């Protein structure tokens, strides 16, 4: 049997992880859906008057009123925010000594374990998020009202927020990767600590404007490339850290 | 040997009949919560004194005359170890052989069924 990666064992491990952690996963993704749904419903409630006025005067088309604007901001903020939160859960199985022991002693390779965490918290995020925007849109339609034609015109498609510019997708991936690395470095209170670390680094960066300028200049036209490099670097460092984790460590 | 005593009790009382199978070494170890090696030593002790015997592949069985052998073994042990102390005690009370004989006869009368 291939000691580094076996697809069958990976599948068993993935299934095991999802069953044993279903409460955590339901909570995590449930809160994400819940927040987006409620916020979209609130937006619909506040836009209801405007929409009623427009539909009454038959003065609607996709150019007279941007029905999507506020929701787009909501979805953008949610994408960044929740990708960071789910990223910070990537190594949540290393949080306590008990769970570290159980997960390290499981007969599977470290690579298989790593890719299970990656699949559950990083890859799965995207389809679940997109479905969440659809659900949120539905909530918006319910509260905003208006005729069926209006609703069709108002529907831009949530996927468009990623289609407009691939930079947005890479930005989300980049932030998510940073928080995933934070999860590997600091499994306890990961989100909080990573956030503080980012904040501190940003403050420090203010003291070295010329250095930052020189680093970022080559990527002026292709920010996505820079972000891709950050993503690969973060996941590689997380792997190195995870590979050598020990049950007793000075885990911050 | 304390552990062997348990099995000897069963044999001498008839709870295990002659040529009846005794528990396997592992069952005996588990029941008494001792290490298997300790149980093996107890069984060796009993086998050497012909209280139990082994049939290859089938386990251990009580010897036909196991009960008599246990009784004889215990009598020898009593006479070798405890009897001297017992008689000294009796002597210190001032008990005569006749009195002892009477008490024993009375005991046998009252405990006919053991």
């Amino acid at each position, binding site marked *: 049997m291939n000691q580094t990666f076996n697809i069958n064992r990976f599948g068993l491990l993935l299934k095991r992880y999802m069953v044993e952690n279903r409460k955590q996963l339901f909570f995590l993704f449930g809160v994400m859906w819940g927040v987006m749904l409620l916020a979209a419903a609130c937006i619909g409630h506040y836009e209801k008057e405007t929409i009623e006025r427009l539909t009454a005067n038959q003065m609607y088309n996709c150019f007279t009123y941007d029905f999507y604007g506020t929701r787009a901001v909501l979805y953008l903020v949610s994408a960044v925010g929740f990708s960071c939160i789910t990223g910070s859960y990537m190594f949540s199985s290393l949080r306590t000594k008990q769970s570290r022991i159980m997960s390290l002693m499981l007969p*599977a390779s*470290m690579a298989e374990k790593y890719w299970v965490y990656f699949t559950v918290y990083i890859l799965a995020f995207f389809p679940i998020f997109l479905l969440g925007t659809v659900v949120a849109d539905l909530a918006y339609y319910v509260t905003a009202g208006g005729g069926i034609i209006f609703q069709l015109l108002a529907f831009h498609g949530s996927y468009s927020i990623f289609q407009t510019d691939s930079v947005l997708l890479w930005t989300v991936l980049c932030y998510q990767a940073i928080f995933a690395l934070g999860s590997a470095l600091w499994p306890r209170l990961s989100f909080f600590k990573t956030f503080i670390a980012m904040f501190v680094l940003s403050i420090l960066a203010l003291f070295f404007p010329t250095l930052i300028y020189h680093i970022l200049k080559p990527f002026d036209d292709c920010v996505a490339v820079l972000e891709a490099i950050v993503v690969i670097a973060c996941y590689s460092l997380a792997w190195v850290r995870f590979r050598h984790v020990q049950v007793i460590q000075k885990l911050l | 040997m304390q552990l062997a005593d348990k099995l000897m009790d069963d044999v001498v009382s008839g709870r295990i009949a002659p040529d009846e199978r005794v528990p396997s070494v592992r069952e005996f170890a588990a029941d008494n919560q001792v290490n298997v090696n300790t149980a093996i030593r107890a069984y060796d002790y009993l086998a050497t004194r012909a209280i139990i015997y082994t049939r290859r592949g089938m386990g251990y069985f009580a010897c036909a005359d196991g009960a008599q052998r246990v009784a004889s073994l215990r009598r020898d042990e009593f006479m070798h170890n405890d009897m001297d102390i017992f008689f000294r005690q009796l002597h210190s009370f001032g008990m005569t052989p006749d009195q002892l004989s009477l008490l024993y006869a009375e005991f046998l009368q009252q405990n006919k069924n053991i």
Partner: protein
Amino acid sequence: MLEIRSLSYSYPKAAKPVFFDLGLELQSGNIYGLLGSNGAGKSTLLYLMCGLLRPQYGQVRFNGHDVCLRQPDTLADIFLVSEEFELPPVRLDEFIRINSQFYPRFDRAAMEKYLTDFRLDTHLHLGRLSMGQKKKVFIAFALACNTSLLLMDEPTNGLDIPGKSEFRRALISAMNENRTVVISTHQVRDLDRVLDHVTIVDGGRLLLNSSISALQQRLAFSLENAPDPTALYSQPTAGGYSIVRPADEGAEETDVNLESLFEMIVTQRQNIF
């Protein structure tokens, strides 16, 4: 067969090593007792035995494989019943179904037998059990995985008195010549008749590494009314004094009093061999 060679380990950022140049060989078919005072590093040694910790120097090899490599095949033959463990809040049959597949020699019938021994129902929800019951389930699962190496850290801790008996019974019936069991404990009385072999660690060093039968040949243990200054050790107990002396040639072997032996070795650093 577990081989520990020249093992040295210090806790992170500690000046003094917990273990220094430790060598130990564990043969299969034996139940090893790892005794030591609290804080002597018994749990640490168990973690070193299964690759949860990496030694600064030396090696731990299980059937020839370095445990630090954490190879899945090696892990599938090792099970650790740690003192701190957690069971997911799922039904027992779900837990068995998803976890047993990682242990190729898992025996379902044996699991049910051990659960019965522990007087537990097979239809349980792990989230609704008390700590003691969870421990019994975990131990039953560990035994049923049929790994060649079974490590247990204070297994009787948290078990009620009937539970301790049930545990001893289950452990003995699960034992065979291919299995090595290492039990670390400071509750010596719970396990003294079950062990084959005793290892005592203190101050980072191996103070004793001997089979019970060797100890029975070398030492005689008795309970007497008064301490004996000429004996190796006299320990006051509830029934009098527990005395340890060198055994007489040809005398009948006595049961080893592990508590007295432990106290003797640790307080007096007696070298009995």
